[in-house]
């Protein structure tokens, strides 16, 4: 259940990052919490915005509306860039760097 999945698309100048899903967001990704991914080389630098498109096309198998709405994450999902709230890092425009860790957390409401 916690095993890592490896999704590799080999091209020049690719960016290797770690994606994590928690708070229930992992339910949309076959219960796999950690994904080491290699984003293919691109004419434009990778941003969170283009990463979301890539996730939708490559990792997200079912019910994308539970994860993305329009070009951003749905309300109630918090994005962390290297353990910092993405609001402090430029949100959708943040440019991904090698070995970045991007975490998508669904906020919990139970008690």
């Amino acid at each position, binding site marked *: 259940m*916690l095993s890592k999945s490896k999704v590799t698309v080999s091209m020049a100048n690719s960016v290797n990052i770690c994606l994590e899903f*928690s*708070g*229930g967001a992992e*339910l949309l990704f076959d219960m796999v919490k950690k994904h080491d991914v290699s984003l293919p080389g691109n004419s434009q630098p990778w941003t969170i915005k283009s990463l979301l498109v890539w996730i939708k096309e490559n990792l997200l198998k*079912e019910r994308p*509306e*539970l994860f993305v709405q329009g070009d951003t994450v*749905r*309300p*109630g*999902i*918090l994005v*962390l860039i290297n*353990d*910092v*709230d993405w*609001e*402090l890092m430029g949100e959708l425009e943040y440019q991904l760097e090698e070995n970045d860790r991007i975490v998508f*957390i*669904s*906020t*919990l*409401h*139970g*008690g």
Partner: protein
Amino acid sequence: MAASGPENSELVRLREEVAEKTREIERLKLILAERNSTSAQTKEATPALIESGNIRDVPTFQPADGLDKPSIARYSRQLILPELGVKGQLALGGTSVLLVGAGGLGCPAAVYLAAAGIGRLGLVDYDSVELNNLHRQVLHTEGKVGTPKALSAATAVKGLNSTVQCVPYHLQLDSTNALDIIKQYDIVVDCTDNVATRYLLNDACVLTNKPLVSGSALRFEGQLTVYNYKGGPCYRCMYPTPPPPETVTNCSDGGVLGVVPGIIGCLQALEVIKMAARQEVSYSQRLLLFDALDGTFRAIKLRPRQASCAVCGDAPTVTQLQDYEQFCGAKACDKTQSLRILQDNERISVQEYHTVLSSSAPHLLVDVRQPVELDICQLPNPINVPISQVSRPEQLQRLKTAVNCKLKQLEQDDKKLPVYVVCRQGNDSQIAVQHLKKLLSDLPVNVTDIRGGLMAWARKIDTSFPEY
């Protein structure tokens, strides 16, 4: 050498005297024990319950201005901590805290706040104790099933520390009463279980300028943040738009391991204690993520207060409390709401299915719960296709094979094979029927759901069938 006569009789007399005194001591011990238990019962006397009609009838709160001998003895182990000391202890005793939700988070938070000597503890909960609460809501006991949670928790807390002023509120916190209740407290602790009440509490705390110590838990994960404290963000700064209702999972659908809210509730008490004792809090503008499966705690730096925030921003648009159920599109409780997606002719009752089963009429039963739930209970001979997997090709293939196998049992004049879909409460089964009608459209089947699911079966057909 044998003792002489007079010395021997002296020994006998002494022994008798010792025996006599021992009996006297035992008698006194018994009396003392009886007196102790009567006085303990008096101390555990039920605190007066506040209900919606009398929210202002809160007893006056008069903190002590010094520590008496019993208090020094009781708190001695924390009094000698330089960070707390007499000053901190008196500050704790002078603080009033409102805990909203006397459940998995509220119970542990209440225990540690009361034990530490908080002055006044308000406990709000509209609900009553159920057997399925006891694995995590550890203040309630078997004997309290059916009694209001606020009262059960207050009585337990009072038994632990009779010097704490406990105020149980048996009511649903809403836009009409939240401000009046919160105004009478210094710190608010969010131990609730639903989105609507979380937004309500946030706005009420911003409008009355109270810090909000917020915790949440589900499955094996917990989260903790302090909102609206010393210029930090509020809940709306983080989440300006409520989540779509279909993305929200409650403890009764998602499950929760009791110790997880236990840990988060304890951390909420810790933040309150530090705040009350004028120490730095740890989770203002920070989010704690606890993963019980990985055994990890991670602290995240959050955004500051947002100038654009609708309630705490520079030009707030929310200046009074709203209708939060409407705002969130969800009820202010964690009870699963009954969906009504299908038409009546697409559904059958549990009584009708009972007849089908008794007559051994050919049909296929599809149970769309998680496999772990089938281990708890099931009807005879279901095929298990979890709702999350109905559209997967391998599951569809299994289903079609089963349908074809059953079709062979049909009499010539039977036109279609009945396929009945069941789940726990009759919500997922309706969604599954919608999917299966399309997915099985190339086969002669008639897909319907069993209204009310297995819980209706347990209530109306077989009372020995487990409910969970």
